[in-house]
């Protein structure tokens, strides 16, 4: 029968990377930047964490590893890597006013390339026969959970700290957007950069900050995926199309990070639903289940555009570069 207590934790674990990605992308899009480079950013976030952890593990025997450093080094590397990606995107789209779609796609190509390349090269450095890197020691730190028994512990307390961090960040982002002045200003930039500019808001600064912080949050999604979900095993392309799914989630939640907390679990659930629904010998059905997130997102997108309700539209200046007209 359908085992909710074991289904939910797995859905959550699938959902967390999406939650990071979508929270990051929501912040970015609220500034009017449509960063299609998020999938690339998440790869970079993941691989940078792996690189950091890899060198720490190489230099220190597992027994001497310090929990603080074991977690801090990969996190710092991951944040730094995705920050650089965000900066690159901003440099091109905000400062150099390049087309956001083209830049984003190039960033994804680049980021996925970086991820797979360094993933592959590290494997070479370890001289091992396996086609993937296993950082089990580091991963153990990341996935350490409270391990309380019972269904309650299984559903709520069985995750590594990054999972809880994702929820905290999403809720905070939601609060930030709705209830702080900076959040208000950020939304104004995304809705109408010219109005924000006239009100004395530094549009460029907001776009840079939102996009870079958004990238860093998204990058953590990559980190969570390798270190916790995949138990420290990096294998090329394993992250798959989760980055795009994160963008889908942004639309699905209509640009609301707090909704994203639950929606990401729902999406994660779609992803693994096939395991829990008896399909008999027909394995093909599971691929159709995996289509669900995209289909529902599309439906949401269509409904939103049909309803013409102003609150549910994408930020009005999404995808547009802004610069002040000078006469």
């Amino acid at each position, binding site marked *: 029968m359908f085992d909710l207590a074991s289904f939910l934790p797995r859905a959550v674990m699938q959902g967390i990377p999406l939650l990071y990605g979508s929270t990051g992308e929501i912040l970015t899009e609220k500034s009017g930047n449509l960063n299609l480079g998020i999938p690339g950013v998440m790869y970079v976030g993941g691989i940078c964490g792996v690189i950091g952890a890899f060198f720490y593990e190489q230099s220190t025997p597992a027994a001497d590893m310090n929990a603080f450093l074991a977690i801090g080094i990969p996190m710092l590397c991951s944040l730094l890597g995705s920050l650089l990606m965000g900066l690159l995107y901003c440099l091109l789209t905000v400062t150099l006013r390049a087309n956001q779609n083209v830049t984003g796609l190039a960033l994804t190509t680049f980021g996925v390339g970086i991820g797979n390349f360094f993933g592959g090269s590290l494997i070479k450095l370890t001289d091992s026969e396996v086609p993937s890197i296993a950082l089990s020691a580091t991963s153990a730190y990341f996935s350490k959970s409270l391990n309380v028994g019972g269904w309650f512990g299984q559903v709520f307390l069985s995750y590594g700290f990054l999972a809880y961090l994702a929820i905290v960040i999403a809720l905070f982002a939601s609060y930030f957007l709705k*209830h*702080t*002045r900076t*959040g*208000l*200003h950020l*939304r*104004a930039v995304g*809705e*109408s950069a*010219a*109005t*924000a500019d*006239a*009100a*004395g*808001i530094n549009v460029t600064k907001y776009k840079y900050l939102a996009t870079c912080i958004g990238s860093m949050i998204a990058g953590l999604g990559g980190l969570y995926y390798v270190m916790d979900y995949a138990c420290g095993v990096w294998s090329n392309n394993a992250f798959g199309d989760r980055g795009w799914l994160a963008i889908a989630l942004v639309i699905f939640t209509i640009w609301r990070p707090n909704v994203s907390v639950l929606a990401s679990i729902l999406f994660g659930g779609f992803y693994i639903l096939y395991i829990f629904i008896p399909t008999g010998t027909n394995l093909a059905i599971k691929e159709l289940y995996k289509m669900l997130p995209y289909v529902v997102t599309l439906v949401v997108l269509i409904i939103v555009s049909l309803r013409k309700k*102003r*609150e549910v539209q994408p930020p*009005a200046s999404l995808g547009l570069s802004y610069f002040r007209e000078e*006469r």
Partner: protein
Amino acid sequence: MENVTKRFGKVVANNAINLELHEGEILSLLGENGSGKTTLMNMLSGIYFPDEGQIYIHGEPVTIASPKDAFEHGIGMIHQHFKLVDLFTATENIILGLEGKLDIAEASKKVKEICDKYGFDIDPNQKIYDMSVSQKQTVEIVKVLYRGADILILDEPTAVLTPQETDKLFAIMRNMKADGKSLIIITHKLHEVLDVSDRVAVLRKGEYVGDVATKDADQQSLTDMMVGHTVSLNISRPEPKDVEKRLVIEGLTAYDELGVKRLDDVSFTINAGEVLGIAGVAGSGQRELLESIAGLYPVASGHVTFYPPDGGKEKELVGLDPMKIRKSGISMSFVPEDRLGMGLVGSMGMTGNMMLRSWRKGKGLFLNRKDPEALANRIWEELGVVTPSTSFPVRRMSGGNVQKVLVGREIAQSPAVLMTAYAVRGLDINTSYTIYNLLTEQKMRGVAVVYVGEDLDVLLELCDRIVVLCGGQVSGVVDARKTNKREVGALMTLVRGGNKDE
């Protein structure tokens, strides 16, 4: 303001202007379109920086380099185009750009207080997109007051308001004056000037003409100051011949997408063999009128009837799109106001732009390039368009050449009706005369020419008859040979609801 000058390239928008504003007074800044009122005020509010001159506040010289600086000196400007985020509430818009901790409830309370104090009527928690134009304007005004401005500049605030809303606004302005605030209102409606202000300053073509206390002024003296003396332009105007009615417009009414009435029961006749001028202050419905006739603007009610030159059966144009109008054999040319945004394709060359009228001609899938190319070459030669080649993007041409291309193309359609909107705006004297001559030539060929203009001197010398629009209504139709600037000027600013004489 002392000796303030602002240039845009070669154009001097404001030339050595001196202006004084006293505490607790309402000053009207009066002038025709393009006389430099808005530019001058933009320098006060920090949007432009003066090239020369100095601004003093309470006797102290100040530098205003950004809107923020202006706010710090207590100057707030309410622009014609509202700068509001549609998705936000009134309060959110009002506090946008301010610093400190966000407390919407507290801010709403303060907004409410301001509203109560001066008699504004808005709900602080209402979203902007739900608001009427006058409510949006109120938000803009409250925004400025919230920041503690004591000098308020209102740029043509009544242009978008109904008479009732205007009265309400004026009442509020008087309240603010009583509270010790100083206000500048930019306008070109004389009765409003007389109604609300204490003093009037007049600008004309970037120059300061003078100021006068309102109680010493009347409509006539102000009109004289505003339009200046008649200048003779020596535009040749042959007597029209074979005049016959071509287009009859009856009861045309249209609304914009916000539901504001743009055309209100407009009726007049356009004759072949005549240049019909359309005068009016900016935004009186000129654009909507021409676009309605051309089938580009949704008409709510009324008729546009076409009487073919060959004496055939008349045709109703309302409800047809441009393609259908052309297909039904009516040759109507239109030189729109927005040349590159509507009349031409900026990235294409002359040839490509000629095709805008002829692309559908010829059978098959492919474009006929030969004829447009030949036409482009003809226009290039005959009108002396300065361009390296017929494939040179028109966007990169100078304004005058762009207009030559557009007018040249429209005339080449051998139209029965030729409508032009602000055909000489931004052009130099020589090009302007080229355009005048082309229009007159068309008139003598029996074309019904419509000329929407802003320069009264030109309208008076070029046109045969002039229709004057005011607030979307026809406020008068006059014979251009018999009338004078004063009469037209008065009609342009006719009080709404006044006599409408046909």
